[in-house]
């Protein structure tokens, strides 16, 4: 059966039944700006930034929520579209505290990027004063409602991406707010701190508490790596400034597809703990003293030789680590088998 077609900016294009206009445009290399759109989640059509013109329609339509139909004539960048988009962005900018100077999102903010793209320099509307106090009391996530544009991406991330069902829309009209059950702070709610809401927030309404003031997005180097906790093997980006990891975000790995859990996202700063072991230690008379590498390595080798000579290699055993890399595990068992001469090597696979 032939695929249905529609006209996109004057050109006929094919589409799959069920696709939205936005998806059809993306597939055909036509860019439509979005704010609230979150891939693979149920569209909300909340922000009205992705408006397009469909011939015969009563109004402009939100392309993220409108299913493509055969024979539709869609224009993505007409004067009407441009004017409306600009107005909607202006209204969003007026709706809260969108001062970029000290905002954590500066440089990665989608609203800021749209304001720049559409050249919005002054705002004709007077905004409302801050209605809800910032939630700064939970240990990990700052919720600054004055910067929230109610796009709902965090709600989709929580309900559709992680299926944790901890947040939704609360109150009505101008009093609208993203809330947990009973509008309680995150740590007194069903929230499990996976931080997918942080990942989804296009502005500076949700930010990592530990990363606040630690560096702007454009100052941070990103290093992709694998999470050090459970066996799922989530892929993540370490955001590094100088010699410090300042935050962690999810990468699109095959086993996590942009998700992390609380440990993966927030369990990174142990590496910078002042309690780290920094020098070899040798115990003497029940007390540890600092030693050089040469002394400590030499002592271990000497001891191994002595024990091997007196009791045989079978009197030496090693427990490898399921927490460290393949290469380290490989070399550990090689050391026991080929260096010492025993197969007494195991690890806690059973834990």
């Amino acid at each position: 059966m032939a695929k249905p077609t529609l006209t996109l900016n004057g050109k006929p294009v094919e589409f799959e039944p069920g696709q939205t206009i936005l998806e059809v445009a993306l597939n055909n290399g036509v860019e439509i700006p979005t704010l609230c759109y979150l891939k693979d989640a149920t569209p909300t059509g909340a922000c009205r930034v992705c408006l397009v013109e469909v011939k015969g329609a009563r109004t402009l339509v939100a392309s993220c929520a409108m299913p493509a139909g055969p024979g539709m004539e869609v224009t993505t960048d007409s004067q009407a579209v441009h004017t409306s988009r600009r107005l909607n962005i202006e209204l969003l900018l007026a709706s809260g505290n969108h001062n970029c100077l000290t905002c954590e999102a500066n440089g990665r903010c989608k609203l800021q990027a749209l304001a720049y793209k559409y050249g919005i320099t002054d705002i004709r509307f007077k905004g409302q004063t801050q209605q809800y106090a910032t939630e700064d009391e939970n240990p990990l996530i700052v919720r600054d409602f004055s910067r929230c544009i109610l796009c709902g991406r965090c709600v989709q991330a929580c309900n559709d991406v992680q299926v944790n069902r901890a947040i939704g829309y609360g109150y009505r009209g101008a009093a609208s707010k993203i809330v947990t059950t009973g509008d309680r702070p995150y740590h007194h709610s069903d929230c499990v701190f996976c931080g997918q809401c942080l990942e989804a927030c296009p502005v500076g309404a949700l930010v990592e508490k530990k990363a606040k003031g630690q560096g702007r997005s454009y100052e941070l180097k990103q290093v992709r790596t694998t999470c050090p906790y459970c066996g799922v093997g989530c892929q993540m980006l370490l955001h590094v400034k100088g010699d410090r990891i300042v935050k962690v975000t999810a990468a699109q790995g095959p086993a996590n597809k942009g998700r992390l859990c609380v440990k993966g996202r927030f369990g990174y700063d142990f590496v910078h703990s002042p309690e780290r072991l920094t020098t070899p230690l040798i115990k003497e008379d029940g007390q540890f003293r600092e030693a050089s590498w040469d002394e400590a390595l030499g002592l271990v080798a000497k001891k191994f030789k002595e024990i091997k000579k007196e009791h045989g290699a079978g009197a030496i055993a090693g427990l490898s680590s399921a927490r460290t890399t393949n290469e380290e595990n490989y070399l550990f068992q090689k050391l026991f088998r080929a260096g010492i001469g025993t197969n007494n090597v195991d690890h806690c696979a059973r834990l």
Partner: protein
Amino acid sequence: MAGLAASFGSGAMTNSFAEFDQAKLLLVIGSNTTEAHPVAGAFIKRAVQKGAQLIVVDPRFTGIAEHAQTFVPIKVGSDVAFLNGLMHVIIKENLQDQAYVDAHTTGFNELKAKVAEYTPKKAAKIAGISEELLVRVARQVASVKPAMLIYTLGITEHTCGVNNVRSCANLQMLLGNVGYDCGGVNPLRGQNNVQGACDMGALPNVYPGYQKVEDKAARAKFEEAWGVKLPKKNGLMMPQMFEGMADGSIKALWVFGENLANTEPDIRHVEHCLESVEFLICNDIFPTETTRFADVIFPAAAWSEDDGTFSNSERRVQRVRKAVEPPGEAKPNWWIFREVAARLGKEWKSKSGQEIWDKEVSKLAPALGGIKYSRLENDGLQWPCPDTKHSGTTCLHKDGCFTCGMGNFQALDWTPPAEVPDKKYPLVLSTGRRLYHYHTRTQTGRCGGLNDLLGQETADISLADAALLGVADGDLVRVSSRRGQVVVKAKVTPQVPQGMVWMAFHFREGNANWLTNPVYDPISLTAEYKACAVKVEKA
């Protein structure tokens, strides 16, 4: 892993995480997925949201159970009886995939005879559920093909752990579910690189790539590669090493990146062993309860301070990258091992993660032969990946063609846990992990915010037992077993059934391993963390 290796010929997760949210029916048994593997849990929950059926089998009403259409609260340690009961109903009602069974498996008649003994009446009684529920689950799991089975340590941490695993394998082979996308038997590994540590031969009976120490040809291969004569006999497993430390036959132990003093069952016994051994070496990133006993401590570079690879549960080798410098004089673990080898007269050439992998590991392990660092930049590769043209393997035993030729059914009897409740210790203690911490908190205990979310251990008890004991949520209770006792706060929760106490091992104070029973599965030597007898009193 020993169980799956015996049934299928390969001891690893058969399928991939990407299939979880595509599956049509998932049977999750002994897995607290939303706390121990939260991202895997998210995919299961998404599958349900998209219309999949979910059956959760667990003594506790866990977070993932909240998403299930069918929750089966079996008694701790009754898994074999329950699974035999399911197979009894399936065979009696002729719901098995007989064509698959005939073409791809051996031992069906023995299995059939054995499960015939496990009538719904008998199996349901052992499992502590209704016959009606057992029959319903059997029909439900047989109604969708393929169905995916997922398990975690609730299956393996028993004295009958290997039998539990083999029973899961029996069920999935009987239903013809092994070797297809969105099917299979899928153990979720608890640690980031347990799969890799096994793959690398950090086991007393196999070299890298599961090549057997006792196999002459394999030994000759490694003797040639490493340029030394190698010992012929298998080495000791961890519990045997502990015995050796206690009786003096083990003189030196090297512990690398593990906090044994808190993670092993019966802490008092473990510490006695660590104290007894003549010479203890530890590599770690922090002082721990275990390093207290060391004679030499080497400061190691941590995750993010060196380059290497981890292998996840689905056999995927993925890169770990260096982002920052190690503190002070801390060094990568491989460097430490290489330096000791040099002082034992062995000069090893490889001097980076990449050189070790590309020049040694992938050359010596046939299933990893096609995996090279240059191919791991983005999404990694899943073994088996025998050559550099191979794109890796998402699903093992494709179409029922098992690694070992034919899948092996094993007729098994249920055995109870080694220690069951009695008059003196009337409750069952089961243990595991909680969401906000990892193992003994060596890492997560030093991350801002996580201690605020979970700051101490609790003993989770049922509403019914709390009422009987006169204990309210937050009251201090003394939990004691034949090994020891702890005083912790009670968490009174509907998650836990009457007769059960549930605890974790994240905190030194109130650590469940003061209480757990150091008894082991006879084959895998996995400890029975999931069942011992305790009593609870108001403290």
